């Protein structure tokens, strides 16, 4: 046997455990889930079939179809707001904050990362509630005559999400900015650009690939999250993950839950394809 073959055999032996694990606990269950999405529920029995009934229902049943749009709308709004808030923050920390405070500022900016995810949503419920800190302050200052309902609305979900993703995006954009050579800005200034022009024409375009990657991450994590809309948004309008959990919890409707998951998966894949294509175009 040739040396290369021995090497390949050894290499394959090293990769095998991880590959088998991923195959057995990810790929196969995933394939099984796709199969399950073609089945349907009769009474409490799952009847394996090969029809697209579940998918048809998702796009005709108003409550299910609405879930897709609610999820997409929330995710889009969250992604845009988070990027718009995070970029200036990252830029200020990377360039305006004195070097010795920089790490401290960054640490502070992502501090709430280190609470548990569930607790973070809960603390927003605490803050945004009718008797919470915000309403208390607004009413106390005379800005509002009486508390406004935010909890259990889409706004609460969006605020909770934006909070999390501003931190995430600040981190990614910051690491992007800090890697840029300061000579780009110097060269632009040297050539007569104002500070605003430097940002708009040089720094911002240079960070765009990083921003896109961060935005994609935000999109994926946001659209697949169950906790935040469940705690903050309540049950008035349901997102896709909430609908999936509802199918499981209430009726044990695995086929429908699977079909909704496949739809969720398809949306994420499309977003990924769009993002990858954009990044590739950008590189050329």
């Amino acid at each position: 046997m040739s040396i290369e073959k021995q090497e390949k055999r050894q290499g394959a032996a090293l990769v095998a455990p991880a590959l088998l694990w991923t195959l057995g606990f990810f790929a196969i269950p995933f394939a099984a889930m796709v199969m399950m999405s073609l089945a349907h529920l009769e009474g409490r029995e799952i009847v394996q079939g090969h029809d697209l009934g579940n998918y048809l229902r998702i796009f005709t049943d108003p409550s299910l179809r609405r879930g897709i749009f609610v999820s997409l709308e929330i995710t889009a709004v969250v992604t845009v707001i988070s990027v718009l808030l995070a970029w200036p923050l990252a830029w200020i920390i990377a360039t305006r904050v004195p070097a010795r405070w920089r790490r401290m500022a960054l640490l502070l900016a992502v501090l709430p990362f280190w609470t548990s995810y569930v607790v973070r949503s809960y603390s927003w419920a605490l803050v945004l509630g009718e008797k919470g800190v915000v309403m208390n302050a607004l009413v106390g200052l005379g800005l509002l005559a009486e508390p406004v309902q935010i909890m259990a609305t889409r706004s609460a979900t969006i605020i909770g999400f934006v909070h999390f993703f501003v931190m995430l995006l600040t981190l990614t954009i910051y690491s992007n900015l800090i890697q840029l050579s300061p000579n780009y800005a110097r060269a632009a200034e040297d050539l007569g650009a104002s500070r605003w022009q430097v940002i708009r024409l040089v720094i911002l375009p240079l960070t765009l690939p990083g921003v896109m990657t961060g935005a994609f991450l935000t999109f994926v994590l946001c659209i697949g999250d169950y906790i935040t809309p469940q705690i903050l948004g309540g049950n008035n309008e349901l997102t896709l993950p909430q609908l999936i959990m509802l199918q499981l919890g209430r009726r044990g409707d695995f086929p429908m839950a699977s079909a909704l998951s496949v739809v969720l998966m398809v949306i994420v894949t499309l977003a990924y394809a769009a993002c990858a294509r954009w990044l590739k175009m950008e590189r050329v």
Partner: protein
Amino acid sequence: MKYLSLAYLVALFGFILLPVVTLVIFSFQDGRLPVPPFKGVTFEWYAKILTDRAMMEALGNSLIVALLSSLVALTLGFLAASGLARVVLPGSVLMRGLLIAPMTVSYLIIALGLLQMFNKIGIRPSLLATGIGHVVINLPLCFAILYAAIGEHQKSALKAARDLGAREWQVLWFVAAPMLTPALAAAFFLAFTFSWDEFIIAFLLTRFDVTLPVEIWSMLRSGLSPATNAVGSLVFLVSVIVVVTLELTLFRKGSK
């Protein structure tokens, strides 16, 4: 510009820190509701939490699941990364793709898939089932970090070790692992954090023994309570201590 920057910084920090600060302050609330007005300081809620059997068990469960699942994910990821970095196998690209794939799929979908499969083959919802799920989500992470850490220089050191007579396990144990210590530590730390904080997989794949996030979730059902604030603050405090320690030791050294 300067004042604008400062104002923006203060506003955003206010937004980011508001919920955490509120959480911590009202964990000391001497009253039944963690909302204004603040009625005075008490440690009653901390005492309640720390003597809560179910809560402490959940904490122990979370630690065990996080520790074991990250170790398994790290080991599998390390072996796979050294294997794929060593030789170009037919289908290398496909293998890397498959190993990374779970990263792009929502945890909810992974959990649902595992739940269905475990139902079918008769594995009951348990900490073991949750641990398996956590390895699935952390393996791509560990693999990606370690694979990226093996550059040309590392590859040639591994080649040199083999040339000097080391057997495969010796190469991994004496050269690859010590050489990749920073990356291994970073991967383990991240995997541990993700598992520790993971909710949906644990929620769907546990029943009687639950992890901390699931236990906190069930606390939420009974509405707002300073006890929940106390748990949250404790988790926060411990995480911050760990992060600051790591920042001061491991990563400071690595960044130089």
